[in-house]
């Protein structure tokens, strides 16, 4: 790493002032600036004080006079029957008041008194009794504050330079519901929710292996967003995990952080108009990605999981494919591929054929086309571009409106505007057909982001076809393919598994092989453990004579 003198001096100065500003435990409250968390550990850790007065003062100075802040002094009976001063702190809006009252307040005072004799036998490291399943001692204010702001209750004891963080989160979360954008007919109906804890449990339920690892990171200096990086040890490449963690650790942000912002921070090509980090709301899809050696990123307050590396095969795949017969999956995927080609090129083909290559069309058909276009003031290119924009407007408006109004907008767009425009000879009827084909084929492609990503290349292809016919269209497609081929997601070529590809990769591309035949994992991933199963396991029914009931009919 090259030596950078200015940054070195800056870091030195920061350390110097940090050392001055952050006193040891027992001294006066430090400034709020000590809450800044640096991944490199440039600041000295700011620890909990031994005296309750200092702790209370510190908490009040940092959290202010927020109306939902609860700070309550109480007496705690500890080992050897000694009563000690204690301070309970939680946020009323986030913690469950009943849990705080029963599991902590009642336990530390009333029940501890009843069990005083037994409490004397508690080890010295456990000087308090609480009825909470998840407790942990923390020493740094950073952890204490994050716990309190996440709904935990912090219990401070006089003379202890640490706090007991009790899990009392009680705020309302949305129940697990069916995914809205990635719904399936036969697949599971569970989708991720905003609570990261629930999302982790959903993943754990799908991937019941002790090798599943979660790495926690706190991102955003101001808002401290919790991010969990999930991967299967040994399957996900070590370099891949390290690269992702280093990209995440580089994020310095003061604003709230959603999964999309995280994706933009870690993307290989941030301005790419295609998703290089896949967002999914399906736990089964995230689990399947984990089993392939990919990494899943969960961001708190976001009902999506991010998957890296992401390739075009993932973007074009539907979760439904793995819940139907492989033959039907093949048909569906073929249709989607055809839909992709059509939605990208249909307007361009129309423009090219009606403008440059009219000799390709049968004469009678061409004459009917010309008759239909009679009186239309716009050339084909302008017609296609305008209708493309109108279609995108209707789609966007339909999404923003409530469901009932959205349907009305669709009807207005499809019938009223289209019909009126044709009657007024603003556009030709065939153009409506082309726009309709474009729209239907676009919606056949799974994933809302993929739908958005089609817009720009479609416009480019249409304009190119309007300028140089099919030749221009071919040139624009080629350049777009070059660009797509140059993209990578965490080192994996974006066009993988189309190119580069191996024979085993082709088993889950357009044609989906039966589950028993997909022996290998994707060749670009999980290189340490490339095999899903030791050998193909085709179903092998017993011979006819050994079947129950004596086998089949005699021949």
């Amino acid at each position, binding site marked *: 790493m090259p030596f950078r003198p200015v940054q070195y001096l800056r870091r030195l100065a920061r350390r110097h002032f940090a050392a001055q500003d952050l006193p040891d435990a027992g001294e006066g409250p430090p400034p709020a600036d000590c809450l800044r968390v640096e991944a490199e550990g440039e600041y000295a850790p700011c620890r909990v004080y031994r005296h309750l007065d200092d702790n209370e003062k510190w908490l009040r100075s940092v959290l202010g006079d927020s109306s939902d802040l609860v700070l309550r002094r109480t007496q705690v009976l500890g080992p050897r029957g000694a009563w000690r001063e204690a301070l309970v702190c939680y946020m009323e809006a986030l913690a469950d008041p009943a849990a705080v009252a029963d599991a902590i307040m009642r336990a530390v005072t009333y029940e501890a008194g009843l069990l005083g004799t037994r409490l004397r036998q508690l080890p010295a490291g456990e000087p308090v009794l609480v009825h909470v399943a998840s407790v942990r001692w923390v020493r740094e204010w950073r952890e204490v504050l994050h716990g309190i702001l996440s709904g935990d209750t912090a219990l401070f004891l006089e003379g202890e330079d640490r706090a007991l963080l009790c899990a009392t989160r009680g705020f309302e979360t949305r129940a697990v519901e069916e995914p809205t954008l990635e719904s399936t007919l036969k697949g599971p109906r569970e989708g991720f929710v905003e609570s990261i804890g629930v999302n982790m449990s959903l993943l754990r339920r799908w991937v019941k292996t002790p090798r599943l690892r979660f790495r926690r990171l706190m991102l955003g200096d101001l808002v401290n967003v919790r991010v969990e990086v999930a991967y299967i040890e040994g399957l996900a490449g070590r370099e891949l995990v390290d690269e992702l963690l280093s990209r995440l650790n580089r994020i310095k942000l003061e604003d709230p952080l959603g999964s999309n912002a995280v994706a933009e921070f870690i993307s290989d090509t941030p301005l790419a108009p295609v998703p290089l980090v896949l967002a999914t709301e399906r736990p089964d899809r995230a689990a399947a990605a984990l089993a392939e050696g990919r990494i899943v990123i969960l961001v708190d307050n976001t009902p999506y999981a991010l998957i890296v590396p992401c390739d075009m095969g993932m973007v074009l795949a539907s979760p439904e494919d793995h819940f139907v017969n492989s033959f039907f999956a093949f048909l569906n995927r073929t249709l989607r591929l055809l839909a992709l080609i059509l939605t990208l090129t249909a307007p361009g083909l129309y423009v090219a054929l009606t403008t*440059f290559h009219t000799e390709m069309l*049968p004469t009678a058909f061409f004459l009917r086309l010309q008759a239909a276009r009679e009186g239309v003031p716009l050339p084909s290119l302008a017609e296609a571009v305008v209708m493309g924009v109108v279609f995108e407007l209707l789609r966007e408006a339909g999404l923003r409106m409530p469901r009932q109004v959205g349907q009305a907008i669709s009807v207005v767009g499809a019938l009223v505007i289209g019909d009126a425009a044709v009657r007024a000879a603003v556009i030709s009827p065939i153009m409506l057909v082309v726009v309709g084909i474009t729209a239907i084929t676009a919606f056949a492609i799974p994933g809302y982001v993929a739908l958005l990503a089609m817009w720009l290349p479609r416009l480019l292809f249409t304009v190119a076809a309007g300028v*140089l016919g099919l030749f221009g269209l071919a040139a624009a497609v080629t350049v777009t393919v*070059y660009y797509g081929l*140059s993209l990578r997601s965490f080192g994996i070529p974006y066009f993988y598994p189309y*190119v580069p590809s191996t024979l085993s990769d082709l088993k889950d591309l357009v044609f989906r092989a039966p589950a028993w035949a997909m022996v290998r994992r994707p060749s670009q991933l999980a290189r340490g453990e490339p095999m899903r199963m030791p050998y193909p396991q085709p179903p092998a029914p017993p011979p006819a004579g050994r079947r129950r009931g004596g086998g089949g009919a005699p021949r």
Partner: protein
Amino acid sequence: MKGSAGRPLPARRPRSQISATEGIALGTCLAWPTAVLYLPSVVASEGRENGWLGVLLGGVAVIPITLLLAALAGRLPRLGLVDQAGVALGRWMGKVVGGLFVLGTGVLTIYALRAGVEMVGLLTLPRTPPWVLAVVITLQGVVGAWFGLEVVARAAVLAFLSVGVVLVFLVPGFIPMFDARRLFPVLAEGPGPLLRSAGVSAGFWGQVILLAMSAESFHAPSALRAATLGAGAGSLLVGWLMVVLAQGAAGWYGVSRFAMPAIEVVRSVRVLLPLLERVDVLVVIGWTAMGFVQMAWLLWACARGVARVLGLVDSRPLVMPLAAVLCALSLTNPEDLVTLILVWTRTVVPLVTAGLAGLVALVWLVTALRDLGVRGAGR
């Protein structure tokens, strides 16, 4: 491994890696687009009834080229031809030989570009000025070359789909008119026509020698060997099929009358009659996809070669200026298509290809005589 006079080998930057499959696609892109259009006419006029046999005979040229490239890459692995020449012949002679190789590549680029412009202009956009088409083809090639060899090689794999499209429309068009008797008798006029057609076609298949420029990007010398052999065989197979079908359908005389007999035949195809009157435009567009990749590859090879001759690590800044020069030169070629094809197919391609093969052979010979590089590597 050390270079001549004990100098270390030239510094290399991290480079892209391409597989044997991608190399085959890349090599096929070099010979196939031009061979499928113009070769039937040329070998028919040179070899008469023997043309289809001469194509096969010319394909033998791929074998020594494959062996030559593999042997050189085995001795001096992970180096392009210019660097290999520098190691074998010394700094300045290496630059001269490398420069000659780049010059040959440039000449092929110029003619390929002009042929593409003429073909597209004639068949799909007759009212568009040639310079517009030349600029568009060049610009897309610049984009591909800018992204690098890895991207171009993978685009070549995808362009294989266009081969399928072209064959789907071409082969059914020929079959109803096919008569095997038109392919015989062979050797009726002695071996002369056969050898002439073999010589012409050897020039087409021998264009895989240009893979020497990208030898540094292959995983291993064996991958280069597989790519060269596969590309030569693939191009040969498709080209031979086109020649056989064209001569069987129209006879050698009929084929030799047209500049692009394949397109003339496909005009009679009526498989999509209710929807499309003419499918030859689709064939041209399918062909264009591979032609585009060919142009991107050639521009990359020129830029890479010039960069190595000048001792530059990054060839990307050279892509645009070189492309502009080559594009301008391509427009100064013969005015009419017939003259262009005659000059190109009978003179430029065979001579340039033979010259490039000779340069590679020279480098390998010196390397072997001086016992440079890694002995036994890549075998």
